[in-house]
């Protein structure tokens, strides 16, 4: 079987983003909690961030002309892949510390793996990204591992 994954593509494994530092605000927590139909007062009031709020905080603020026709941007960690349509795969999160308004958090993302599989409707490429989120004291707050598949 010929591989879609050339040595040039595989050389991107280990790539890291620059640290991204963001401020947690009460208003952003409230918007996220409302948009997700959360019912717990501490989240709706913005007193504490609900789990998964970090997806809001660290989603790339992509410029409009960097979006492709489907409205998606290609992850800056990735090489050019021969398959383009992204689908959510699995995630694995560890929540080590709570998040409150006023916290400054920093995320670094690392491309940890790329592999391919034969799917029912053709070839699939999977890639895995680890995001580590720390506070200003250097404590790990969240460890987020994601698998995305391209078809």
């Amino acid at each position, binding site marked *: 079987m010929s591989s879609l994954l050339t040595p040039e593509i595989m050389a991107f494994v280990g790539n890291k983003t620059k640290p991204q530092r963001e401020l947690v605000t009460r208003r*952003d927590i409230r*918007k*996220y909690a*409302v*948009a*997700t*139909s*959360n*019912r*717990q007062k*501490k989240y709706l009031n913005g007193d504490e961030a*609900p*789990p*998964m709020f970090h*997806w*809001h905080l660290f*989603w*790339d*603020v*992509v410029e409009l002309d960097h*979006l492709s*026709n*489907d*409205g*998606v941007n290609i992850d800056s960690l990735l090489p050019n892949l021969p398959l383009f*349509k992204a*689908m*959510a*795969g*699995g*995630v*694995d*999160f*560890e*929540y080590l510390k*709570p998040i409150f308004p006023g916290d400054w958090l920093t995320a670094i993302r690392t491309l940890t793996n790329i592999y391919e599989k034969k799917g029912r409707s053709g070839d699939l490429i999977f890639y895995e990204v680890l995001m580590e989120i720390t506070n200003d004291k250097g404590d790990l707050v969240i460890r987020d591992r994601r698998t995305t598949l391209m078809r």
Partner: protein
Amino acid sequence: MKYSKENIGDEIPGREYTPNIAQSMLYNASLWNAHRIHFDYEYATREEGHEGLIVPGPLIGDWLHQCIQEWLGDSGRIYSISYSNRLASTIGETLTSGGVITGVDDTGNTAEVEVFVKNAKGEIVAPGSGVVKF
């Protein structure tokens, strides 16, 4: 709230969600997610072959978290969770969350849970499992 091995098999209550396009728009805007399958009906159905506008996968992932966190209230936290988006759901469908306790450690301080979001046909669209600390 105190848990022991006798609680293994207990159900974790869930709830129903019927996401509409306004919710999907607000959620995706809060992330900065412009994927057209969530708001452009023509694109979602013609270009990508979906049956309608797609409910964002991580929104369903959030509902798995809510299922656990509402059950815990202020007496515990989610320590870890894994889930996957297995089937697409369309805007207007009613989805239902729920779960079960699958393990409790000897001290009663840590439990393992399984959670799910199902569609109206009873298919699990997103299965998950997690560890909680009381």
